[in-house]
């Protein structure tokens, strides 16, 4: 990033903060303003006895920066998350302090470049999945109201697990209710005090939560840098545990298959080599890559040409490519048995809905071609074609596109906070639903927009989107790959 971009971006934030403080001052001075606290009769609002519920900076960022752009986020939809979605129009009566979609508000049909509908199961749901899923609702209830270890396991759960294990070539697998919770609860039951976790600096919050809850020591290495990983590992092994200098019980390296905010594949080959050399275990989070990448949809391992036997623990979610919900962990039998017994999501939390299990099973059947058609194959092929086409055209436009070819996630850099809202609004005006990301999801300086390409996108749709984006890039000066001024 050039100094010029950094300076202008800082300047933009400084302006926001300055104006925010000025407004806060006048609001305090005049006693009027959107955010002036109205006296309420809740005892918890009596600040002479209670500390404020929200600390000032969190609050300040929310009030004075986030709210300015909040129309770009949380847009409600009223349709399937397929390639075209109906976005509900929202209104605000208090200068964007709150936004709501009143009853009977109109929809705007947009081309969906935001949902994780990689294989397009939301588009042809009625053709591919509806029959099985509807039938499962007849046989099973919406929820089992019980934990997996008690009475929350149905035949469908077992089928999902054996299918996942077979798909990935692992001995066994376990499926849990929520992708986020899969990370947050399995990591603590795999490692604990006396163990070391080495985690990529851009790993997802769920991994961070799990790592924190585990009580293990945590080291972070530079994003996707095998050299830094090796240095970290070497140093950790040489130094041992802090103070006592005893060796670590075990070392677990956690990486993601595709980093969702970078669109970038993990250098799995390198990670595997280094971990083998130093005897560390590998935990691979394939939330975005499973089902969507690799020649047959087997994710990052297949893409990188790594045998799944070399990755000790494979984790992934069903939310994205499978159009369902929940997550799985696949590993050898002993590990999965251990997880079944000790992992909180399996022993205490509610099980995955049987209906969702059926959706996963059906999606697997299609992907593996076991439904007797080649729909799955076509989906994978068109996802790859669409992504590579879209990425190529974006690069031709001179936008700064992150990530690699063959990845369906492609962020483009916006940098300036003002461009977050501007880009999103311009796209929305032209009927494109895009995701823009700012602080705190990404570092302050690195705001971006992200496109998620789907197998359900038609080439004409993509062409239309690209033409619009080209125009917007001209207006907003986004061609950072060509010149530092955009």
């Amino acid at each position, binding site marked *: 990033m050039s100094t010029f971009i950094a300076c202008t971006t800082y300047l933009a934030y400084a302006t926001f903060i300055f104006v925010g403080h000025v407004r806060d001052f006048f609001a305090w001075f005049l006693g009027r303003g959107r955010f002036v606290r109205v006296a309420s009769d809740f005892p918890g609002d009596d600040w002479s006895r209670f500390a404020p519920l*929200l600390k000032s900076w969190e609050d300040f960022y929310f009030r004075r920066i986030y709210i300015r752009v909040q129309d770009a986020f*949380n847009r*409600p939809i009223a349709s399937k*998350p397929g390639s075209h979605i109906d976005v509900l129009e929202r209104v605000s009566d208090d200068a964007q302090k709150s936004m709501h979609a009143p009853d009977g508000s109109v929809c705007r049909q947009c081309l969906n470049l935001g949902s994780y509908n990689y294989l397009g199961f939301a588009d042809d749901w009625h053709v591919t999945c509806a029959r099985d899923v509807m039938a499962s609702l007849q046989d099973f209830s919406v929820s089992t109201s019980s934990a997996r270890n008690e009475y929350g396991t149905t035949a469908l759960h077992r089928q999902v697990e054996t299918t996942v294990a077979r798909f990935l070539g692992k001995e066994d697998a376990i499926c849990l209710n929520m992708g986020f919770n899969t990370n947050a609860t399995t990591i603590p039951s795999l490692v604990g005090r006396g163990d070391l976790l080495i985690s990529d600096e851009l790993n997802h919050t769920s991994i961070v939560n799990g790592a924190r809850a585990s009580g293990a020591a945590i080291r972070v290495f530079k994003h996707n840098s095998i050299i830094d990983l090796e240095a970290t590992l070497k140093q950790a092994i040489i130094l041992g545990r802090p103070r006592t200098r005893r060796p670590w019980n075990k070392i677990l390296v956690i990486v993601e298959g595709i980093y969702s905010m970078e669109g970038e594949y993990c250098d799995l080959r390198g990670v595997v080599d280094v971990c083998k050399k130093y005897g560390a275990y590998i935990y691979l989070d394939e939330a975005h890559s499973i089902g969507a990448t690799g020649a047959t949809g087997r994710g990052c391992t297949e893409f990188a040409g790594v045998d799944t036997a070399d990755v000790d623990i494979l984790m992934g979610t069903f*939310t994205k490519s499978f159009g369902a919900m929940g997550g799985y962990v696949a590993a050898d039998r002993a590990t999965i048995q251990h997880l079944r017994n000790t992992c909180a999501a399996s022993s205490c939390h509610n099980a995955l809905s049987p209906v969702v299990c059926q959706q996963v099973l059906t999606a697997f059947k299609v992907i593996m071609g076991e439904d007797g058609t080649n729909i799955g194959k076509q989906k994978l092929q068109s996802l790859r074609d669409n992504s590579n086409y879209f990425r190529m055209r974006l690069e031709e436009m001179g936008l700064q596109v992150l990530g690699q070819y063959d990845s369906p996630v492609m962020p483009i850099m916006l940098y300036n906070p003002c461009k977050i809202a501007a880009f999103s609004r311009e796209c929305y005006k032209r009927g494109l639903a895009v995701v823009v990301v700012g602080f705190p999801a990404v570092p302050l300086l690195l705001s971006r927009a992200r496109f998620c390409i789907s197998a359900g996108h038609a080439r004409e749709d993509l062409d239309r989107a690209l033409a619009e984006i080209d125009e917007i890039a001209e207006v907003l000066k986004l061609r950072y790959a060509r010149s530092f001024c955009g």
Partner: protein
Amino acid sequence: MEITTSEITEKRTVLNFATFDFLGMSAALSSNTHNPVKQAAQEALDKYGCGSCGPRGFYGTVDVHLHLEKAFADFTGTADSILYSDGASTCSSTVAAFCKRGDLIVADRGIYEPLLTGVSLSRAHVKWFRHNDMQDLRRVLEQVRETDQQLKRPQNAQRRFLVVEGLYKNTGTIVPLDELVALKHEFSYRLILDESFSFGVLGKTGRGVTEHFGKKLMHDAEIVTIGLENSIGSVGGVTVGTEEVVDHQRLSGSGYCFSASSPPFSAAAAMQALEQMKKDPDLLQRLHDNRTYMYEKLKAFCTKLEDLLFVTSDERSPIIMLQVADIPETEYLDEVIFLREVVRESLSRGCALVATGRHIPSRADPPPGIRMVVTAAHTFEDIDKVLTVLNKSVDVIMNRFHEESKE
């Protein structure tokens, strides 16, 4: 009410006293053609497909989510509510969103796993009080006040929270909310209350433990989490409270912000279940009748067993915990194994119960016991049957243990 337990090879229908489906929302079998909850789920599936394919911030907000949030806020009489896609992460994310390093949490020792995770994730300073013991809570609060005075620290220098459950999942006891709220006001703490198991169960209209004790949300309990997996019979959870409480979580509730939103069909099912609950006060009445009947029968049952097993749960709770008494006869027993054997025997005799407890318990594990859940879908005959089966199973296992110890 019945569930089918299916191994890969055999399938058997047994009486279900194991799942937390208090109002029987998901109880209907395929033979029951008209189940409004399922129908709502079906319609939503037809319209929205299965998954939502994205987090709430990025086009994962579907209009049914908004309707459900509104319905919960209206029903509980709060300003707003926020929907999570998993009941457990509702509690843990909510606690972690508000309590930060430097804050103080005073928590009950009996809280269940997700709350405990939230408490430990928050990195706040934690003090514990004995389960449901208000004297002990007072002691802890006074200790804090003393420290305040010594340090000349004003009361409002630190955010302080009490963390309790309405109806404790692990023990089936009910929080003495009257005294707790009085203490909370006296010492100026905010209350984080988990109503996952009490919602739809306690109170005249099922609004939970706050209604049961005549307390007002937002006044007496600032942050309330409700799981949709028990009475409501769907998947997910909501947190209700003031606008400030809810809006803050939309950016810092990690389970909300960084996870895919709940599938539209489960939100639609939850919505319909809430409607059913409002429309049909009979459901709640049936649950109460069954519960009363169960506890009556249990009294006779425990006497018959010569007090080998005794009831430790609250008489108002449909979660029933039976624990092994501390009598000389049971000294040689390995409690955990004994209870597991009893439950296995009961299952083979056609009743599904749950044995809790582990040999090496962690903080979050419930004490060893047998858990039964009475629901509105049971009949008095079902209750009679489960107690007969349990009685028989205990006898069989006791005899077996006796013989083994003789050998």
